[in-house]
Every structure is written in structure tokens, then in C-alpha cells.
């Protein structure tokens, strides 16, 4: 049994219209990986997704693209709450408008008007124009060298959100329209122009998009649920050959459920050079060593393994603004260890060691360690400065002069007064 990175309980909310059997390959693939699947229909009350303010499942698959009514515990708001509780979501859409159409907008995805599926007439094939083979662009999330995948459903436009991770984009010659006939092409252009939205067309449209939420959870939006169906898994491509759907679905699920590209910072350490104990405070201009240990989840062994593959990691030493921003390179020979030595700035204050590593597809790495940077102690300043010699000489000469004067005064008083008195007399 494989223990998963964030847990292995999966709730599948499956529309009654969709047969569980028609997705058997996808589901059994998940079960083979060790996930425990629980099925419920959208209107079922049990099992609840959130109970006593706690998420009951580690992952939720929402395959209800056409349902309009859900049980009370499944709302757009509750799904966002799930994300905040580190539950991963896999959500399928369809051209029909459902409560979750509006949710997509919250994830910075814009859906076309209801009832406008993606249409493409290329390449020439027997299937209807809405069933499209889409070639897969290489991505870290997906296995390399995937064959094109069958897709049928609704495209969406990406808004400007750095948290979005496009996984599959529409073919360049595809477009979204409510009419499937070729005759209405001009009418289509007219209509879209009137809408002021331009033409829903081209490779800028997304079909499958991941979303890396700030809390660490992941959500994946899929334009059509058929992509995961047994039928699409097996349907031959127009040019012959197996489609990549099965592997694609498995990869997408793996990414969504945080099997692949999951990183974490195990711990961070900081101390002065030549010391090992972390300092409570540092003094300005100290040489400070900062070390971070980073692991990556290995889905095969389902363990966290030290990971030294990040080359562009940076460390910031920040008080309001970064006073120091430096590369945090991996240490050779020590897997997973990233370390840097730097001189603390000549400015006291409350500083933070910050690692903020956000890359598309990868788990965001964020670590912030607060440490006060203090001025030197009263006895920590250098003594006997060469620049202060005038003062030393002044002090010493005054002391010596005083001693000499006192000695002369005391010793010479009698005679001097005697002389004086004799002279005056």
C-alpha cells in the first residue's frame, strides 16, 4: 500500500448520469496507486466533505459537470474552504452552466457563454467536430512524449494570475461556438464581435489548467469529463495509434493529488560562521551561515527524498526591503542541502531570512525566520584605535603633567617661598 503525500482518501462526487463503469480505468488506476475512493452523488448528504470544520477527505474529484443542484455541503464556497484546508480538487466542467461555472471565475478562468463547446474541424476524422484530438505540449507535469489526447468539452480563457498552471491548451485551429454547422461561420464572427469578446478561438484557450493555491493545495480544472472516460482512453487517433489519454489522466491526477512536483522545506538552520548553535540574535556585520534542507516527494517509493535539483533558489535577508538577496545554491555531496554564507548588513533591526520560491507547477516553497540583528555590545567595539591616539596622548600628558606639577609644587614650595621672601626682604 502506498501512503500518499497528503493522504489517500478520495471523494468522488459523480453525477448519476455518468456511469461509474465508464470511468473504470481511471478510477482503478487511482486505486492501484493506493487511493481509497469513496463515491457519492451530488445530491447525497453523506459523506459530507467538511465535518466539524475539518476536511474529511484528502482529495475531492468533482465529476458532476452537468448537475445543477448539489447537497448543501457542496457549494463553490465550500470548495474554496476545502482548498484552504489543504484538500486537492479535480473539477470537470461542461458547456452547460452549473453552480461551478461561476467558481471557475474565482480561479481566474473565464468560461465562454453557456452552450458553446470547443469545436475543431481539423484534422479530418469520423468523430463529430466537438470531439477533438489535442496534441500535448511538453510540460513538467506530464510524462514526456505523450500522444495527442481526445478532448470534448468547453474551453476557457486564462486571466492574468500567476497561480494558474496551464496543462493543456486548445489546438490553434479550434474555436468555441454554439453552432456546430460550418454554414454559420460568418454569423458566428458577427455574433462574437457583437458580444465584444472577440472570437473564442486559438491556442490561447485552455482545456486543462492546474491551480496552485497559496495554502499549498492544488486544484485542476478540466474542460470536459470525457477526457477521463474509458471510451476516450481507447479511441484510436485519426492518424491511427493509441491516444495519450490514459497516461495524461494519470499524470494530471498525480499532479493534482500532490504526487508529482511536490517539494517541501524540511528545516532551515542559521548560525554564525564557525559555530553550530543557532544564534538568538546576530550582531551587525556578523558572518552568517544559512542552510535549508529541501525534499521532494517520490511517488514510487512514496517517501520524501532529499532534493538538490533546484538551481535558482534565492535567499533574502529582509527588513521591510531585502537588504541582501543572494543565491542559495545546493551543496555538493550533501543531497537536499542548500547553504550560503553572507555578511549581515551594517544595520540593526528585526530581519527575516526569507525563502520564497514560486515556480509554475512546483509546490511553492516559503520559509520565513525572524531574527533580530543587534548593534555590538558595549564591550564589543574595537579598543585602542589608532585614530584615537591624540586623545590617549592628551589624557596621558595631562595626567603626567598634573603629577609633575603636584610633585614640583609640593617639593619646591618651601625653597621657593623662602627664596621669594629673602628676595623681597
Amino acid at each position, binding site marked *: 500500500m502506498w501512503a500518499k503525500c497528503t493522504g489517500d482518501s478520495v471523494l468522488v462526487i459523480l453525477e448519476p448520469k455518468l456511469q461509474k463503469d465508464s470511468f473504470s480505468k481511471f478510477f482503478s488506476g487511482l486505486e492501484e496507486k493506493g487511493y481509497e475512493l469513496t463515491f457519492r452523488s451530488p445530491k447525497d448528504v453523506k459523506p459530507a466533505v467538511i465535518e466539524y470544520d475539518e476536511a474529511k477527505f484528502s482529495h475531492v474529484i468533482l465529476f458532476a459537470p452537468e448537475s445543477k443542484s448539489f447537497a448543501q455541503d457542496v457549494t463553490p464556497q465550500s470548495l474554496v474552504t476545502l482548498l484552504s484546508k489543504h484538500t486537492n480538487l479535480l473539477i470537470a466542467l461542461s458547456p452547460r452552466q452549473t453552480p461551478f461555472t461561476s467558481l471557475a471565475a474565482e480561479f481566474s478562468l473565464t468560461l465562454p457563454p453557456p452552450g458553446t463547446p470547443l469545436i475543431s474541424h481539423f484534422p479530418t476524422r469520423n468523430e463529430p467536430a466537438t470531439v477533438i484530438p489535442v496534441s500535448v505540449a511538453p510540460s513538467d507535469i506530464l510524462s514526456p512524449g505523450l500522444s495527442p489526447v481526445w478532448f470534448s468539452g468547453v474551453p476557457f480563457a486564462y486571466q492574468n494570475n500567476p497561480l494558474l498552471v496551464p496543462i493543456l491548451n486548445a489546438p490553434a485551429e479550434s474555436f468555441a461556438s454554439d453552432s456546430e454547422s460550418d454554414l454559420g461561420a460568418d454569423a458566428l464572427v458577427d455574433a462574437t464581435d457583437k458580444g465584444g469578446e472577440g472570437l473564442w478561438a486559438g491556442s490561447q484557450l485552455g482545456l486543462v489548467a492546474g491551480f496552485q493555491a497559496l495554502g499549498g493545495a492544488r486544484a485542476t480544472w478540466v474542460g470536459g469529463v470525457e477526457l477521463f472516460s474509458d471510451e476516450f482512453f481507447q479511441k484510436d487517433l485519426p492518424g491511427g495509434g493509441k491516444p495519450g489519454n490514459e497516461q495524461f489522466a494519470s499524470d494530471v491526477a498525480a499532479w493534482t493529488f500532490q504526487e508529482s512536483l511536490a517539494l517541501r522545506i524540511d528545516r532551515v538552520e542559521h548560525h554564525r560562521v564557525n559555530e553550530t548553535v543557532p544564534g538568538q540574535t546576530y550582531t551587525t556585520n556578523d558572518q552568517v551561515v544559512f542552510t535549508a534542507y529541501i525534499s521532494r516527494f517520490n511517488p514510487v517509493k512514496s517517501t520524501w527524498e532529499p532534493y538538490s535539483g533546484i538551481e535558482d533558489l534565492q535567499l533574502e535577508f529582509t527588513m521591510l526591503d531585502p537588504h541582501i538577496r543572494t543565491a542559495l545554491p545546493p551543496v555538493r555531496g550533501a543531497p537536499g542541502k542548500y547553504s550560503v554564507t553572507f555578511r549581515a548588513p551594517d544595520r540593526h533591526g528585526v530581519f*527575516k531570512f526569507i525563502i520564497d520560491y514560486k515556480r509554475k507547477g512546483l509546490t511553492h516553497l516559503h520559509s520565513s525566520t525572524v531574527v533580530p540583528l543587534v548593534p555590538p555590545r558595549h564591550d564589543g567595539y574595537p579598543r585602542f584605535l589608532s585614530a584615537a591616539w591624540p586623545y590617549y596622548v592628551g589624557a596621558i600628558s595631562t595626567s603626567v603633567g598634573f603629577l609633575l606639577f603636584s610633585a614640583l609644587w609640593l617639593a619646591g614650595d618651601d625653597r621657593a617661598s623662602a627664596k621669594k621672601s629673602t628676595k623681597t626682604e
Partner: protein
Amino acid sequence: MATTTAYQVPANLSPTAIANTSSLLRIVALALISAAAIASRLFAVINFESIIHEFDPWFNYRATKVLASEGFYAFWNWFDPTAWYPLGRVVGGTIYPGLMATSGVIFYALKAINLPVDIRNICVLLAPGFSALTAWATYMFTKEMKDESAGLLAAAFIGIVPGYISRSVAGSYDNEAIAIFLLMFTFYAWIKALKTGSAFFGTVAALFYFYMVAAWGGYAFITNMIPLHALALILMGRYSGRLYVGYSSWYAVGTLASMQVPFVGFQPVRTSEHMAALGVFGLLQIIAFAELVRSHVSSKQFRALLFASVIGLGLLGTAGIVGMTYKGWIAPWTGRFYSLWDTGYAKKYIPIIASVSEHQPTAWPSFFMDLQFLIFLFPAGVIMCFRQLRDEHVFVIIYAIVASYFAGVMVRLMLTLTPVVCVAAAIAFSTLLDTYLNPEQPEEETPSAAVPSTAAPSETSSAKKGKKAAPAPATLAELVSNATGPESTKRKTGIFGLDTRLLVILNALGMLVFFVWHCTWVTSSAYSSPSVVLASANPDGSQHIIDDFREAYYWLRQNTPEDAVVMSWWDYGYQIAGMADRPTLVDNNTWNNTHIATVGKAMSSTEEVAYPILRKHDVDYVLIIFGGLIGYSGDDINKFLWMVRIAQGVWPDEIQEPNYFTRTGEYKIDDQASQTMKDSLMYKMSYYRFAELFGGQQAVDRVRGQQVPKTGPTLDYLDEAFTSENWIVRIFQVKKEDLLGRDLKSANSFDQGKKKKRSKPSSRRRAIL
């Protein structure tokens, strides 16, 4: 008897017996005065509890705790990362450590003799304890001016005068608590040094000056008073060797010692405030040298030499100071100094100083409130000083003039006026008593018809009346001893009869009684409130304690993570640090104007503008004071304009004060309030859900006396975390960035289930077409 007397005095007393009795009476009187001084300051503890008051004392208390628990060197090097987050504060180098060191010494001394006393109790009771010492120091000082009886009167006055009590009630653990004692004692030692020409007393003055420098920023008052006095004496042609020795030993030792305080450092030789002392020191050397030369050369040569050298050196010295100021070696006058001369200066250029209520000019009634009948006697006492005009009297006169001016400029400086008022009033009052208690009558008068048997009881009864009458017998005894002595000069002027004497004396005693009455009343009703705890009266007259501040601070302490940063207006920084133990952005140590202005900007901007500021400073909670529900007028909405002004000083393009007024120029919070006002974070936080409290009735702000709009403001970037019982303290939590990268406003409307408008695809797509 050589002269006629108004009443019988015992004649057969030996001078030793009189001296012994009077000294015993003096000691008893001083002890009683000390007891009265301490006792009257305990109102705060009795009415409320043994608690640290107000704002600054909370910091002093916290610092003292560090000193007591971690030792002196840790305190010396203390860097406080929780204050002025994230700048931090080098506490050891930015405070006057005298107060904490005093408490620490007392704490360790008591511990050494196995008396474990809680450091809090030492802090609370330090001010009353030192007020007793102040009474003693004032006694010594006044004794030098006139005599012991005036000294006792002055001690009694300073012991209970409200002007000093206002800063030294139990729990008012502030620098002023010990500073007034040090001030008076330094002055005493200076007068003593001047009178005797003793280097020893000059050094004593210097040591106490050092203590004063270590204790209070007001030491600059001494730094300028003593040179001023010396200069006045020189100009009056009263230069003497005594002056030279006293001043030189005070200045040399005192300045070197004061430079050991890290916060002062090289200021005594680098800033304009200290230049007077240096200049007078140089002048004294020149004059001393001139005197030396004069004793060796002929007077004609000397005159020419003097003329040339004085002019030459004077020009050289002035040019030197001006040149060094110009070159930046000497810092020019600071803004705080200018604000003493031009009361409008601070408001124009340094709003942060003007925003403090104790920096406002003094209102007339407060002179009477703080000094009562002493303020009438004060000029009389100053005139009495002119009658003799010895060197030390010049000091009192200068002190009186300077302190009167400063007290008129700033409420806070009433404190420095109070001692000299007590001294001058005591001189006047004791002269009055001397005159009217003197049993001698002028010569021309026929023998007195007064009955001695009635005079004696009145005298004893007045002696019994209390400590203030105590000096009378001593004075009387001396006078009598003088009268019975060999002195035989006949008096031409004087008082006839007993009735006149009784009338005046009874009147004077009545004034004293009313003074005591007034002081007690003012102390108990006005100056003993800790301001952390508020008191109000129930309908049945019993006391009702409003404890919102501590309620809220303890909530913070117990419900928030230890490193949660709290933003509030700077007034509450020390209290939050002291009671809630949480990092604060700004506090009462207003050393960084920009940081305060940042908080001001966050408070006076819209949520959208404020949020990035809050996030940048890692703010977790925002704390505000709101008095609208119970009518607590010292709340943040009333201080709000200062926040705006201070922010405007730094960001004149973004924050503009006129925007916060209505179109007719009024400061309003009701429906007519300007949009900028309504959008400001401070307004939103203050009135968030306020109208709901009235259940559909018209919501009324009791401080402003205005009606609050029925639909209150909404908050998207903050969550209400806590509101205290009477709504005085409201705490808001700053939300984290949205999970999905949305702005919090739209996230909030999504959470509330509002339908989002179907957004159009981003322009990126259109650009391709």
C-alpha cells in the same frame, strides 16, 4: 526686657535648650511633611490598585523588569526587537537609565537584606518615596535662601502641591518622579558651592547633575540655569573666586560625567543647547585670567589690555561657535527647542510634538489648580528676594522668570515651575509669619495692653494645627532669644497690639488650611487616576470601574501568537508592550517620525492602500480606541486629525487634511462626513457594526454627539477580532492574502455568496486579434 512685647515670652530659657528644641521640632516637622507627602500620593493605590499608570511608566516598568531579571549589563545592551517593529529599538542607548537603575539598586539592596519585594511595588512606590526626598531637598535649598522656617514651609508646600503630585502619584513611574528631587538637590549643592566657594560642593552638584542627566531629558534646564546664574552674577559685577571654583568644578566634573550616559554621549560639546554652559565656562576662565593679570600689572596697562583681550576673545569665541555650527560640528537648535520660543512652530513643522496634549500652552486656570494660593505668594517671594539680593537670591529670581515663561508655553513644564513657586511662596509666607509673630513692638507705643494668657494658647494651638505652623515656634524662639540678647537697637517700625497679629495670622492659617483642602481634593479627584483603569460613578454613587484597556490587552496576550505584531497609534505602544507583551509598530518613544507617519497613513487611507502597508510590516492585529459608545473622549477618532497631519507631512501628495472635513469645513462623522473620511481605515474600524448595536434605533456617537449612518462601513481586508465590554478598545485582525490570488474585496463578496459579474476575457486575448 529691653523692648515692649505684644505678648509674654518665656525669658529664662538657655540658648542651648532653644536650639535643641527647635532642631527637634524641625526633624519632627520634616518627618511629618515626608509622611504627608507620601500619604497623599497613595490615593491612586487606595482608590484603584497598585498599578503602573498611563503610558511612559509602562515602558519604564518593563525596562526595570529587564534590569531586575537580567542584570545591569544585559539592560545596558538591551536591543528590543518588539518595539518599532521591524526597526527595533536600541533601548540601552536611547533611554535615560537613571530611573530604572534607581529601582534596580533598591530592588537588589532589599534583596541583599533578605527582603524580597516585587519589583512592581518598588516601581509603584518610588515616586512617593522620592517626593519625601524632594521635600527635604527643597528644605535645604530654601534654608540657604532665608532660614529654616522658610525651608520647612517650602518643604510642606512642595510635599503636597498638586503641580508636583500630578507627576509623582504612586504608580506614576516616570523620570520626573526622581528628577525633581535631583533638580532641587543639584541647585542646593550649587548654591552651597557658590556661597562657600567649595570645590567639594561643586563636585556634589556635578554628581547630582550626572544623576539628573541619567534620569531625565529635562537636565538641559540645569545645564542652562546654572550658567545663566553665573553669567548674571558676572554681569552684575559679582565675580568672585567662589563663583570660579564652584562653577568650574561643577562644569568640568558634571560635563565629563554626563557624557558617560550613552544617550547623551557627545551632546554636551556638540549641540547648541549645551553651548551656554561651555561659553560661560570659557568666560570665567578669561575673567579669572584677567583678574590674575590685574593683580600683576598696573591699572592703566590693565585697562588697555582688558579692553583688547575681552573684545578679541569675545569675537573669537562667538566666531568659533558660529563657525562650528555652520560647519556642522555643533548641531543647531532642535525643533523641540524652537517650539519653546514659538508656540506655533511645532504645529507647523513638527506635528508629532504638537499632537501631545502635555505640550500645549498652559491654560490660566491650571495655574490655580496646580498651585492654588502659592501662585499669589510667588511674586511676593520673588520681590522679597530683591530686598536682600545675595548671590543665591539672584538664582531664585532667574529661576522664577525662566520657569514662569516655560510653564506658560507648555503644560508639562509646570513641573519645573512648581519648586521655585514653593520656595518663593515659602519665603514670602515665612516673612509674613516672622513679622506678625514677632512679639516686639515699635518703641513709641505705650506698653501693650494685651493679655498674655490669651496669646499663649493661640500660639500653642496653631503649633498643634500641623506641620505648617511648626516653624513658627522656632522662629519665635530665635527672635525672642535675639530680643533678650545683648542687641538693643530700637525698632522704628513694627506691628502694634495682638488683635492685628491674630487677624493676619488667622487669615494666613486659613489660607494654609484651604491649601491643604484644595491639594487633597485635586490629588484625589484629578491626579490619581491611572488612566489604564477608568472610574465612573453609578447612580447610587458607588464607583464603577471601566477596565476595557486591560481586558483588551489581556485578550491579546492570551489569544494571539507571541510574535503577532500589533499596530496602533503610538500612544498605546508602551501599554501594548507592557501589558499585552506583543510587538508594536510605534510607541511613545517617538524617535522615528516616518514610521509613525506610516501608521498614520495606514489609518487614514482606504483599505486597499492600507493593506499593502500592513502586510509589509507584518501587521497581524490593528488596535484602536473608540469612545463613541460610552463617551470616552480621548479616543482615536478625536486624535485622527493628528494622524492625518503627521502622514501628510511625509506624503503630502497622498494624504491631505482638507479632504477629511466636510464641505463646510467641519470635522464630522455622520452622514455628511466626506467620502475620504468614510473610506479611511480608522473611520471604518471605529464604526464597524456600531449602528447594529442600537437595534434599528438611531445610532449616536456620544463623544462627537453626532448621529452615525444606519448602514455602517464594511471591512474587506480586516476581520473584527475583539471588542471590549464598553467598546473602548477594538481589535481587528488583518487577513492573509487570498488563497486564490484574488484581491480580498472580491474574495469577500464571493464568500458572502454574491454573484460575480461574468468577467470578460482579459485584454491579452484581444491584443492578438
